[in-house]
């Protein structure tokens, strides 16, 4: 399997902001890579370089062996892009939007029409096909934008936070469409802030922070990196956190970690530890609302690696 996307040491500076500080990764043909990172990590900037919208200060990016800067025209023929914000023409109807894109790809006339129909159907927009996009909901716009990125049957697809702002049902439906595309052989680079999304869709995950890839691997590999199973306890009252922590420390399995979620965690040796912890807490007269063993989640990975919680991109704030 050869690499469909290769990114080497990309650097991009906007004024004083170093948006990319040496991003490198590669993506074998037919696989899915999830770029995971907090706000301002450089995900969108990376995608824009690959989609030929932005020239990097240094480093290289290539798609199917074509250089994203020097062979931009050829790259544009083989890629599809759905940016972070739906880029659809509000004054045209959904149908007109897709036909416009089809014509600009120089598809034969009959194919322009059939492709637009098929995509509207696939994204459940047939009913709204002849309404101007101004009247669409946010989720409908997103779906239309995604449809527009597929008009050309791209071999390599870039999706920048494709499900941000969608309700759970639409998100699930979109995941299914994306899984279909991948089954048909599309190579996909996906950025997301939803760890669950990366876990479900991506073969490999690259965690990006401060313009660099700080960890890369399968979801399991990343979880192993953080450590084995942990025993997690959530004090019923936050005031008890210190006393609960000292009870857990007395189990002598390792250091007690306080998670940003309010939970306390210690490395777990086996299921017997849960019973032992329960006894110790009861003896000390402490209430916990949750107690159990847990594989580290991608949340734990994210927290451990980046030192902060994944935030929804709806929240417009700076990287801590």
């Amino acid at each position, binding site marked *: 399997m050869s690499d469909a996307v290769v990114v080497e040491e990309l650097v991009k500076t906007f004024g004083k902001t170093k948006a990319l500080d040496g991003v490198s990764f590669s993506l074998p043909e037919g696989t899915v890579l999830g770029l995971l990172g907090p706000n301002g990590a450089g995900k969108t900037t990376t995608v*824009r370089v690959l*989609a*030929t*919208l*932005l*020239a990097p200060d240094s480093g290289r990016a290539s798609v199917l062996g074509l250089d994203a800067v020097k062979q931009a*025209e*050829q790259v*544009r*023929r083989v*890629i599809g*892009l759905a*940016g972070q*914000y*739906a*880029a*659809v*023409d*509000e*004054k*045209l109807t959904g149908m*007109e939007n897709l036909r*416009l*894109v089809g*014509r*600009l*790809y*120089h598809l034969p006339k009959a194919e322009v029409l059939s492709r637009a129909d098929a995509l509207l159907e696939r994204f459940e927009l047939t009913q709204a096909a002849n309404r*101007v996009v101004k009247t669409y909901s946010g989720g409908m716009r997103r779906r239309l934008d995604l449809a*527009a990125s597929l008009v050309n049957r791209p071999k390599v697809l870039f999706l920048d936070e494709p499900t941000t702002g969608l309700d759970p049902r639409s998100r699930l439906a979109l995941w299914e469409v994306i899984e279909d595309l991948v089954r048909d052989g599309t190579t996909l680079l996906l950025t997301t802030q939803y760890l669950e999304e990366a876990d479900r869709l991506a073969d490999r995950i690259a965690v990006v922070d401060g313009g660099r890839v700080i960890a890369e691997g399968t979801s399991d590999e990343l979880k192993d990196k953080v450590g084995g199973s942990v025993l997690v306890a959530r004090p019923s009252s936050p005031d008890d956190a210190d006393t609960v922590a000292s009870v857990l420390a007395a189990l002598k399995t390792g250091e007690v970690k306080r998670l940003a979620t309010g939970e306390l965690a210690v490395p777990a040796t086996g299921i017997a530890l849960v019973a032992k912890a329960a006894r110790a807490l009861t003896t000390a007269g402490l209430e916990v609302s949750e107690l159990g063993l847990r594989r580290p989640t991608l949340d734990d990975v994210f927290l451990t690696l980046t030192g902060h919680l994944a935030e929804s991109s709806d929240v417009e704030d700076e990287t801590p």
Partner: protein
Amino acid sequence: MTALDTVPGGGLRYAVQDTLVLAGRALRHTTRQPELLVFSTVQPVLFVLLFRYVFGGAINTGPISYVNYLMAGIFVQTTAFASTSTGVGLAEDLSKGIVDRLRSLPISRSAVLAGRTLGDLVRMVGVVLIMAVVGVAVGLRPSSTLGLLGAIALTALFGFAFSWISAWIGLMVKDVETANVAGFVWLFPLTFASSAFVPLQSMPGWLQAFAKATPVTPTCDAVRAMLNDGLPLQRPLLISLSWILGVLVVFSYLSVRSYRKVA
């Protein structure tokens, strides 16, 4: 215009085709916003009525009637004002991410700008036609049909050149509201301080000097001479066409350059 960049394997044919497709899109926008067409004609119609009936009697326009004088100025000012929507539209495409979508497609880079200005040219012809009908209704009597057609053609060409200035402004400010204001403010003094509505002789010397130095005065004079046989045509027409050509060359260059930078 600047050289059309060609698409490998597609060539000039695709560049032309892409431009036409995008011109069609710009025109469709116009039909989807009839209020835009109404606003770009209501204001000049008001001006026609105001100047024709309120100021008309007080203005000495020599051998021709004031309506026949005024309409040339109205044509030119109307297209100048109408050209501002080119920049507003581009700023909107930029802020809504449409430009990004278009730039990710394998189309020639100049098609996005050329398509929009071409679509706007067609719209401008429509607006001038409406104003010609309004003019005739209030007493405009062009000397010949050919002259009227020539006047419409020159006005539309003038508006086309100005839509490239507007395109450049839109690409520079990148924001719809700002593009709207920045596109308009300079057009007021430019079009009023000219021979559009009153003969230059009635203005103070310094203002006459300014009015003569802008593209608006020669264009108004040339359009007026086409509507009215007997007025000198050749000199203002040559100056006007030189202006139009100059503006097209300079501002298509500047626009394409800033379009490339707005990544």
